[in-house]
């Protein structure tokens, strides 16, 4: 990584300083229509085709609040263990910028709809043990997104050096929820991982709530990372920088790491950290200075006069709370207990991204252990071969359960079962169909099996003698012979039983 900025090595930095994090995450809601008007929120439409007088900020237009956005905001607040305001308002944040048609953003200022919550994230250490960090949530509030600008001319497509800009207001007015943490202390050298884990955890939570598609690469989840350093945990908070444009989980981690190194170098050299907004550069892996925050813009907040207060009834809040999906950690704990998995088995299942798949396979009738076995070994191997995620394999949890049922019914053995799976993955149809088409069912007709056993006994008289003499372990050779004749389509257990019966 080439940079003109002076950096201190991360380990040295962490030996000398204690980091404090702050994370601001903006979530675009997946409502059908925008926050204050009935325009579509669909991503990727032709420019300026999802606009109206309201989201274009035309003179005379007025906002009308999307009830589903309020509902989503409350649910997000509840999932983050926040208090939900009895009464709150929108406020105008006044500043001029061409991507903001009214030159004020309708947001919430000192009356957020949700506040004072917490959430827990787990960070795995090198041994694979999980450390739990409790992160305080300052607030979650509602606001509207801005339009998008394309900077034209200049060399980088970025704003500096551009000749002019082109504005598309399709995104203007899309509902946003801003989630702000309280200062995150006590992470020490794990700060980058904690930051990443927090954002990842929020993603999972928001997906489970169904309020956003949280696609960072599309901008429906955006993260600003605040970081400051202090000599030690008892010292007052240092000056922080805010890094924007952090568009992936990996970037969150890298940005924290970089800022630690950068700020440590400054402070160690006796210089001050400037309170400013910085930009993360994915290509170079560094942050660069943006707008100085020392002269903070005076936003002249005042309550939005075109909207009336929101006073969610306690009944409504409780109704929403009772219908929340289970928090991920609680779900994992419950499933582990239900399934009787060890910690290791559970961790492997989660790590393979197979938790829901196993759950669904169990729901379709399989035993948990069988489900885990199929997904984590056979199917994981197949997925690896094809270079896809487990969830992308062309086999459903129900089908996996059906295959296991065939085994349980002793209609196929393990080896045959794997062939059935191959057939399903190849698109030959359902497990039953594959069995029928490929003729994979074991022979269960005792007379046919018995005849094969007789032939094996006849062909191996010495082995048969041993067995008659009580040495049952010798049956293996005869079983092998029968299986060979049956082309594997026999239940080895039944064959053994027949052999022992005949030779007893």
């Amino acid at each position, binding site marked *: 990584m080439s940079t003109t900025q002076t950096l201190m090595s991360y380990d040295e930095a962490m030996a000398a300083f204690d980091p404090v994090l702050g994370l601001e995450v903006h979530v675009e809601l997946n409502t059908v229509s925008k926050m204050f008007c009935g325009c579509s929120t669909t991503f990727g439409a032709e420019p300026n085709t999802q606009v109206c007088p309201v989201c274009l900020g035309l003179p005379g237009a007025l906002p009308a*609040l999307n009830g589903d956005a309020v509902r989503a905001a409350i649910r997000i607040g509840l999932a983050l263990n926040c208090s939900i305001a009895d009464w709150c308002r929108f406020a105008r944040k006044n500043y*001029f910028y061409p991507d903001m048609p009214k030159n004020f953003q309708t947001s919430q200022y000192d009356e957020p709809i949700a506040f004072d919550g917490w959430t827990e994230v787990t960070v795995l250490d090198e041994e694979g043990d999980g450390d739990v960090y409790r992160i305080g949530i300052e607030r979650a509030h509602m606001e509207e997104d801005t339009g998008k600008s394309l900077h034209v001319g200049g060399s980088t497509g970025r704003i500096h050096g551009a000749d002019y800009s082109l504005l598309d207001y399709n995104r203007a007015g899309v509902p946003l929820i801003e989630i702000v943490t309280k200062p995150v202390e006590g992470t020490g050298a794990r700060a980058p991982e904690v930051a990443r884990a927090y954002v990842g955890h929020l993603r999972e939570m928001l997906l489970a709530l169904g309020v956003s598609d949280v696609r960072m690469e599309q901008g429906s989840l955006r993260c600003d990372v605040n970081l400051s350093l202090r000599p030690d945990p008892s010292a007052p908070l240092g000056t922080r920088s805010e890094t924007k444009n952090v568009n992936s989980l990996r970037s969150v981690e890298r940005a924290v790491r970089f800022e630690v190194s950068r700020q440590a170098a400054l402070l160690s050299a006796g210089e001050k950290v400037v309170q400013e907004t910085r930009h993360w550069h994915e290509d170079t892996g560094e942050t660069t200075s943006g707008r100085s925050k020392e002269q903070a813009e005076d936003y002249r907040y005042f309550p939005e006069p075109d909207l*009336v207060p929101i006073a969610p009834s306690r009944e409504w809040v409780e109704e929403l709370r009772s219908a929340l999906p289970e928090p991920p950690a609680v779900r994992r704990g419950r499933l582990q207990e239900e399934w009787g998995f060890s910690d290791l088995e559970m961790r492997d299942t989660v790590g393979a991204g197979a938790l829901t798949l196993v759950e669904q396979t169990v729901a379709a009738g399989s035993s948990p252990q069988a489900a885990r076995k199929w997904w984590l070994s056979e199917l994981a191997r197949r997925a690896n071969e094809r270079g896809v995620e487990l969830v992308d394999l062309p086999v459903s949890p129900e089908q996996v359960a059906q295959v296991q049922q065939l085994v349980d019914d002793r209609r196929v053995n393990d080896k045959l079962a794997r062939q059935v799976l191959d057939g399903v993955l190849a698109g030959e149809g359902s497990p039953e169909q594959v069995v029928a088409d490929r003729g994979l069912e074991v022979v269960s007709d005792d007379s046919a099996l018995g005849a094969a056993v007789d032939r094996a006994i006849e062909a191996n008289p010495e082995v048969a003698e041993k067995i008659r003499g009580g040495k049952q372990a010798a049956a293996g050779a005869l079983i092998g012979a029968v299986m060979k004749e049956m082309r594997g389509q026999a239940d080895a257990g039944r064959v053994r039983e027949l052999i022992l019966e005949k030779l007893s």
Partner: protein
Amino acid sequence: MATDLIRMTAADLAELLALGKATSVEITQAHLDRIAAVDDDVHAFLHVDADGALQAARESDARRAAGEAASALDGVPIAVKDVLATRGLPTTCGSRILQGWVPPYDATVVARLRAAGLPILGKTNMDEFAMGSSTEHSAFGPSRNPWDLERIPGGSGGGSSAAVAAYEAPLAIGTDTGGSIRQPAAVTGTIGVKPTYGGVSRYGLVALASSLDQAGPCTRSLLDAAMLHEVIGGHDPLDSTSIDQALPALVEATHEGSLRGVRVGVVRELGGEGYQAGVRARFDDSVALMVEAGAEVVEVSCPHFEYGLGAYYLILPSEASSNLAKFDAMRYGLRVLPDGIEAPSAEQVMTATREMGFGAEVKRRIILGTYALSSGYYDAYYGQAQKVRTLISRDFASAFEQVDVLVSPTAPTTAFKIGEKLDDPIAMYLNDIATIPANLAGVPGVSVPNGLADEDGLPSGLQILAPATADDRLYRVGAAVESLLDASWGGPLLAKAPALGGQA
């Protein structure tokens, strides 16, 4: 015949249309002819849409012929203050910064007028962005009072009232933020109603002070005002501050006739010193008239009304400074490139445009409002002003426990000469001293012409105020007073106005 048509009230024209004794085309043409004859002198109109109005008139006649009148007022032409968005018609708000802007949408009020079949004659002149009491702050020159063309017609809606007073239109839509319908009505001898805040949709009404603005009727009779009010009023889902309650029966209220037993409160603080002698005299006469007709008149005190002007001139500029931020040369309206700068930035274009595009009064109020909202000053100014509103509302509430309606002179003076108060902003602001409290509290008010001042022979107005949502009470009492007054004059006061343009 055409002359007669323009002298008729809207109610009488509606009856003619219903009886098939005149067509909308005849009526509309008669008014267009009148405009052509006198508007060079009156300058009520900024834009006349002859083609559009006649087209709408033809459609109205076709509906009537098919027995499918869209409303009682179908075919009666109307003028609309240029602060309301009219699709396809220029809308300037009296400002250079919107010169040439043609809205792609109709304000809800305008949509309701069109749906009711009223041909729109054109857009009327106003103080720039409704900031003023004389229409002298229009970027396109003042309108003139039909009673004396050297005098102001009031403001900010001087154009609408002048059009009605000059018989250029039987009806007009005005807007009232601090008296901009009522005060022009008073000084032109016509009628103006400010509905209960929230009673008429603000969607499409270019915002000045969002918490104070209301659109309302400008007419020559209370019945006309009631008919028009019923067309434009009522809940609008596009305006979150609109009242979700059916309008009371306003037209019916105008027929109820009697003042017997009506409890009338004379507001001590709205009168006396600072009010022109002739205005006070006519007011006293009005009160005597009401007593004679059986009303019970008492004096009431609303002690906080004296702070109304101060609160108003803090709240309005604050909200306006934010509402007017959208005029930045990026998406519509004027764009000015600053002199002597080769490749100006967006910011430079914004500041140059706003400097050139806004008039002195608008700039003054934007700066004042920016100050009042800025950090460190919010609590002392805007915050306090909002508390004064509460006190004023409480004054109204306790007054209305004692009386049914409150009365006062509408304005402290008759029409002053053009140019007389231009150099002294505060002197200009004092024109609103009696009308402002109603806007701050949101209660409805009407100005009814109550005679000519002795010293100058110019009209004055009687203001009647009612509790919020009791607009019917305004019409009931107002119509009763109007009958008595008209009877005393032998006809409407306006009949005493000097002839305009050589035509009788």
